[in-house]
């Protein structure tokens, strides 16, 4: 059986109760109906499904998730925001928190609203980047999602400030499940920075299911940062998918720190010539965490480039999975694709499964990938100890140096500082 059949939450019933909201929008309604049928047919993937080979959804299936909150909990936004000056949307326990949000004075050409307030416009872009048939959460998300952020940047607009989305699962309602959809549309020759943070209080033990769909027109450029720092009892499943027109650029940074089970699917389709995607990722796993990153880059036309660096630090009994797929389609000549995945293992009991894949159907290409699994270099450790650092500090310093490489690639200085701070606190053995 390729399908997980033992699912305790009746997701379909929840979807029925949410149908009221979509009544006005025919397109959304159709999609939701299709998604429901698809979900009834296929449910969630089992481990026989190649893309879920190393990640079992069994325990997620066993959970009884709750989809109603009587009252949203509290979230300390000052703690969570990564940049001071930003257009900000805050969602706590599935509901927009208007007091914590800041959406005033949007410049001309920029639309930022909760999904629920731009249903008609946002629905036009729904499910363009994700496929309901794909084994995973696309069908579930499509039939259940009821909030998120909608961003539209008009042609020739350079957004002056970052746009920040903060999603919090307060843990106020146990086993609470959120299903969100973000839609980001960048017009011709526009530019924006989007930062998304997913956080939760320690006791949160629910599910965050989110899909971010991105559409980049010619020459559009999106700087996109995702920080996932949810509680260690929480489930997080996310997809970020973009289609890129000619000369567009998507710089994606994906940092995963939290979650009992976290899965990211990052997908770029390079559909226009001279388009470029950067995928940087960092995952720090500890305890019994399980973090799975699946990335996919489709070079569909000639002269496109991609650059991917994913790094992981594994401690205690944790388990990490990396699967990076680069597909160079027929006639996509002059593709330049580079991918690397490096993992640092700190303790007995952890496990890494990595698979950098390439499928190449054109000959005039430059494609390379590498992956490595190793531990702290004894010579480097000796060097630091000889200079008076104790063993614990020396190890922490070396671990930090390994991880910080991904952070160094962030171009926004303020963001780089705040993310570095988060990483330092989170690193095994307290950072350097």
């Amino acid at each position, binding site marked *: 059986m390729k399908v997980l059949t033992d699912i305790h939450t009746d997701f379909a019933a929840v979807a029925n109760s949410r149908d009221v909201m979509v009544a006005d929008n025919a397109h959304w309604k159709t999609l939701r109906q299709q998604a429901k049928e698809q979900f009834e047919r296929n449910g969630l993937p089992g481990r026989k499904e190649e893309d879920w080979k190393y990640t079992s959804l069994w325990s997620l299936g066993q959970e009884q998730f709750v989809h109603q909150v009587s009252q949203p909990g509290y979230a300390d936004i000052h703690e969570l925001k990564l940049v001071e000056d930003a257009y900000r949307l805050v969602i706590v326990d599935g509901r927009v928190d208007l007091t914590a949000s800041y959406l005033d004075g949007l410049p001309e050409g920029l639309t930022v609203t909760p999904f629920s307030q731009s249903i008609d416009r946002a629905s036009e872009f729904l499910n363009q980047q994700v496929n309901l048939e794909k084994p995973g959460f696309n069908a579930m998300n499509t039939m259940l999602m009821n909030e998120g952020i909608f961003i539209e940047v008009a042609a020739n607009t350079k957004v002056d400030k970052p746009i920040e989305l903060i999603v919090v699962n307060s843990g106020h309602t146990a086993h609470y499940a959120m299903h969100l959809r973000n839609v980001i549309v960048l017009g011709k020759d526009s530019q924006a920075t989007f930062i998304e943070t997913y956080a939760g209080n320690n006791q949160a033990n629910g599910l965050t299911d989110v899909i971010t769909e991105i559409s980049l027109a010619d020459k559009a450029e999106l700087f996109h940062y995702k920080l996932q720092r949810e509680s260690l009892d929480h489930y997080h499943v996310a997809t970020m998918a973009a289609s890129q027109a000619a000369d567009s650029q998507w710089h994606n940074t994906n940092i995963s720190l939290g979650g009992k089970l976290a899965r990211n699917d990052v997908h770029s389709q390079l559909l226009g010539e001279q388009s470029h995607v950067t995928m940087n990722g960092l995952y720090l796993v500890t305890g019994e965490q399980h973090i799975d990153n699946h990335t996919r880059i489709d070079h569909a036309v000639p002269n496109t480039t991609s650059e991917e660096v994913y790094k992981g630090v594994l401690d205690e009994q944790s388990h990490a999975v990396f699967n990076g797929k680069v597909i160079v389609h*027929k006639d996509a000549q002059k593709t330049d694709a580079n991918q690397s995945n490096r993992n640092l293992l700190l303790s*007995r009991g952890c496990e*890494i499964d990595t698979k950098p894949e390439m499928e*190449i159907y054109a000959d*005039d290409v430059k494609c390379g*990938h*590498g992956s*490595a699994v190793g531990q702290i270099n004894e010579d480097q450790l000796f060097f630091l100890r000889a200079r008076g650092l104790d063993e614990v500090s020396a190890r922490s310093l070396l671990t930090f140096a390994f991880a910080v490489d991904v952070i160094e690639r962030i171009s926004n200085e303020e963001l780089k500082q705040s993310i570095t701070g988060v990483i330092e606190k989170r690193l095994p053995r307290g950072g350097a």
Partner: protein
Amino acid sequence: MNDQTQQLEAITQKEYKAGFFTDIESDSLPPGLSEDVVRQISLIKGEPEFMLEWRLKAYRHWLTMETPEWAHVHYPEIDYQAVSYYSAPKKKTDGPKSLDEVDPELLRTYEKLGVPLDERARLAGVAVDAVFDSVSVSNTFKDKLAEQGILFMPISEAIQEHPELIKKYLGSVVPQKDNYYAALNSAVFTDGSFVYIPKGVRCPMELSTYFRINAANTGQFERTLIIADDDSYVSYLEGCTAPMRDENQLHAAVVELVAMDRAEIKYSTVQNWYPGDENGKGGIYNFVTKRAACRGESSKVSWTQVETGSAITWKYPSVVLQGDNSIGEFYSVAVTNNMQQADTGTKMIHLGKNTSSTIISKGISAGRSSNAYRGLVRIGPNAENARNYTECDSLLMGDKCAAHTFPYIEVKNPTAQVEHEASTSKISEDQLFYCKQRGLDVEDSVSMIVNGFCKQVIRELPMEFAVEAQNLLGLSLEGSVG
């Protein structure tokens, strides 16, 4: 398409040079597969009871299995009932005792293929256990090997003469239920080689078997078992060519290697079976299970393969590193042209402490072919200080071919060091220009560049094979630069 491409394509269209068919009366079972066929094969082979039971167990399990579909290859469904599972060259009452007694037609076939069976064999120091379709026809140097206690014989003979070794080792590396094709092979295998190197013996010559598929409609199910006891060494060569046929022929071999304490086995393959014509018609389906167990401490197994033939190759020579300090190596060149499909690679399973493995894989795709590397490196939780280095490079020739890489890496021990690197490129205009400027024609330039690309692997081959392999590379790729 530029002039150069056209010129090259013209050269590529050369016919398969080993394509001829020897007309010898064959003694075949009618097509079809059933328990009776399994019983009959066992009967013809004069096998003891335990072997029949073993085969039937495999057959019964095979019936419950499904055809694997995960490989990156496409082919029409195989009708296992249309295959004949046994074919032997007509037997003379006592069988040939020397070359003089061997059917001269057979000898001419080998001659054409350049198999050093007679005088040349002795000069080359190669002992050949030639498998013509399914029965071993001739063994050379057997006596010389016997002096040192080395057993080198057809596996059917070994089953009769050394049942204790067969009972102990057959299926111990590749169990009957291992996979679909291994189960099929276990049920119906007709012949193959058996090698046993006793303790402390270094095999004085390279052992070699030339396989050849001849009769039409005959699936070839070889079974090879090599056991290297403590402190022994053996180098084994396997090479194949097949005559041109229009029907797809199924080949599902199983090779098992067992290396005990400090033993070393070197297994080299040059595979040049008929790949089908330029439209993908005909050609061999090569679904092989090859696996080695480094059972003893400090043992070593090295697989080297040059794969240029077959319509479809589905082959993953693997090493299970059980003994502490054991070493596994895999060197591979896989060439696909026209409509060929290859899904090949290796598995290195690290279980013992201080085990290390090296994987060097070179894939070359031309024409409309598809060439995939699929590998697994697994470091078990108790494999302290395990080390793996993997390098897989692909060379693409022409804009209609494809190259894929699927490396699986699973690490469960924090002391492991695993590195994987892969690259894809094509022969650059610059390289070609450089060669041509120095007076080489395109064909020689390509051959030279390709040989350079594969050098790391070719140099692992024994001398005789290295020459053949280089020629093969040139032959398979003539004129495929785009």
